[in-house]
């Protein structure tokens, strides 16, 4: 039997550390993301979520540590190289190409993404398929600048998915959305996972994260505080303490 060795994980973070000056924003964080999961990280303000996300997404260089995907070292790759390696991302603040139509936005991803669709008509067809999958086909010819915030966020994800990634990194995609829009957005994440793309998701909103994630990493002061399924996290005393403070009567000295 040859299946003694499991397939290397789609994302493997090994002892990642990032110093800003003398301050460690992320310290010695290690974790793995398995295929087919929605993997989330949470943490109080300043816990190092954004720093960790930025390093994985190739926007920041770590002080030490490694990021691997399927066994390949991707630590030093630039954002566009990550796209070619099958790792796409969305931005917290949406960044559409404002002077282009929705279709043109997605078409660029069809061509420059991993699929590398060369001909103009094939790229258009590919982009239309993805747009239709996300229910955006009626907006295809509209200018990206006139979409509502909710639709711009959906365009951001649609465009990332048009690069045909194996792993999608989502940065606070529910920020600024209404409850209804948030619920819909989380549903899109589940559908993306079920379609075969692993999702890594950072969010401020603990409720959103626990609702959608299969596995959660909790950060505090740049270190890993806890990791596990949502139920496990919600009952972990260390996590409760980090979010709510020390229970009265058990306050530590000093």
């Amino acid at each position, binding site marked *: 039997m040859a299946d003694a060795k499991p397939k290397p994980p789609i994302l493997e973070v090994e002892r990642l550390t990032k110093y800003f000056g003398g301050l460690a924003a992320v310290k010695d964080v290690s974790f793995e993301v398995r295929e087919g999961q929605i993997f989330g990280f949470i943490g109080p303000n300043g816990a190092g979520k954004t720093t960790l996300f930025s390093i994985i997404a190739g926007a920041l260089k770590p002080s030490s540590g490694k990021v691997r995907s399927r066994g390949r070292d991707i630590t030093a790759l*630039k*954002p*566009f190289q990550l*796209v*070619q390696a099958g790792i*796409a*991302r*969305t*931005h917290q603040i949406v*960044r*559409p*190409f*404002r*002077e*282009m139509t929705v279709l*043109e936005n997605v078409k*660029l*991803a069809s*061509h*420059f*993404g*991993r699929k590398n669709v*060369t001909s103009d008509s094939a790229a258009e067809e590919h982009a239309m398929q993805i747009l239709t999958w996300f229910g955006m086909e009626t907006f295809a010819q509209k*200018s990206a*600048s*006139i979409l509502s915030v909710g639709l711009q966020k959906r365009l951001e994800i649609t*465009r*990332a998915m*048009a*690069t045909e990634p194996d792993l999608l990194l989502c940065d606070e995609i529910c920020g600024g959305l209404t409850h209804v829009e948030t619920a819909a957005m989380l549903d899109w994440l589940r559908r993306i996972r079920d379609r075969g793309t692993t999702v890594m998701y950072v969010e401020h909103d603990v409720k959103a994260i626990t609702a959608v994630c299969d596995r959660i990493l909790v950060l505090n002061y740049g270190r890993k505080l806890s990791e596990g399924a949502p139920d496990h996290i919600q009952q972990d005393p260390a996590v409760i303490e980090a979010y709510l403070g020390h229970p009265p009567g058990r306050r530590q000295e000093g």
Partner: protein
Amino acid sequence: MTLIEFVNLLASALLLAGIYAVMSVGMTVIYGVMKIVNLAHAGFMMLGAYLALELFERFRIDPILAALLVFPVMFVVGRVLHWLLVRRLPTSDQPTLASLLLMFGLWLVLQNLGYFIWGNADRSIYTSHTLSLLRFGAVTISTVRLVVFGAAVACMVALHLILNHTWFGRSVRALIQNRYAGQIVGVDDQKTASITFGLGIGFAGLAGALLASLYSFNPDFGRPFLIRAFVIIVLGGLESVSGVAIGAFVLAFVETFGILFVPAGYQLALSYGLLVVVLIFLPGGVAALTAKVRRLA
């Protein structure tokens, strides 16, 4: 002013606009993609002018054809400079002091290189066509100006087609609109920046070579044109190629018709005046205006 005078002025404004557009478009694409204000633009125009002169004097190549040959040479020069120097600049969404200093330094180096190779005497390209005129009824047009205008318009149209109908052009437009979004759809921003820098320098050289058929030049050539290019790209909204075309027409018309009201020596003052007016009343340039109209439509 008689109607004939008016039509003559109109024709010369139009011819001037074509050369102004080619002269400014290189700055616009470089600024748009890299947010670098190419202060060395005039230096590359000067190099283009001398290259055209050399091609004409040594190989008897027609100056207009020479200008078209200058383009690929300067394109390569631009890409080499990008690889050697420009790519080492910190990336930013705004012009950085480092980039301004680098480009200004580059201009000084180019100028002095020009003095070293060609000396400080004024040169010009003189052919049998230089003084020839074409008459269309009452309107008289210099043949060379008309040909230069044709070449300029052809190059602008070619650039427009490249930007709108090739994947490279789309990657340029994507990076102009949002660099981060460009990166996350998989655009190799360094490669696009390098080719764009080559194009920008190529257009500077081309414009200089075309201008060499109209004006005399020395290694300090291009300084007044640099100022005009600034006015034009601010008018056009800094990052828009069609904005440049419009900006070039506005400036050319203001300068041409301005001589009816103020002495010709005040032409540059008119350009600066226009710049001030635009910065006060239309800081986003023509591009911001059209974007607003499109949103309302």
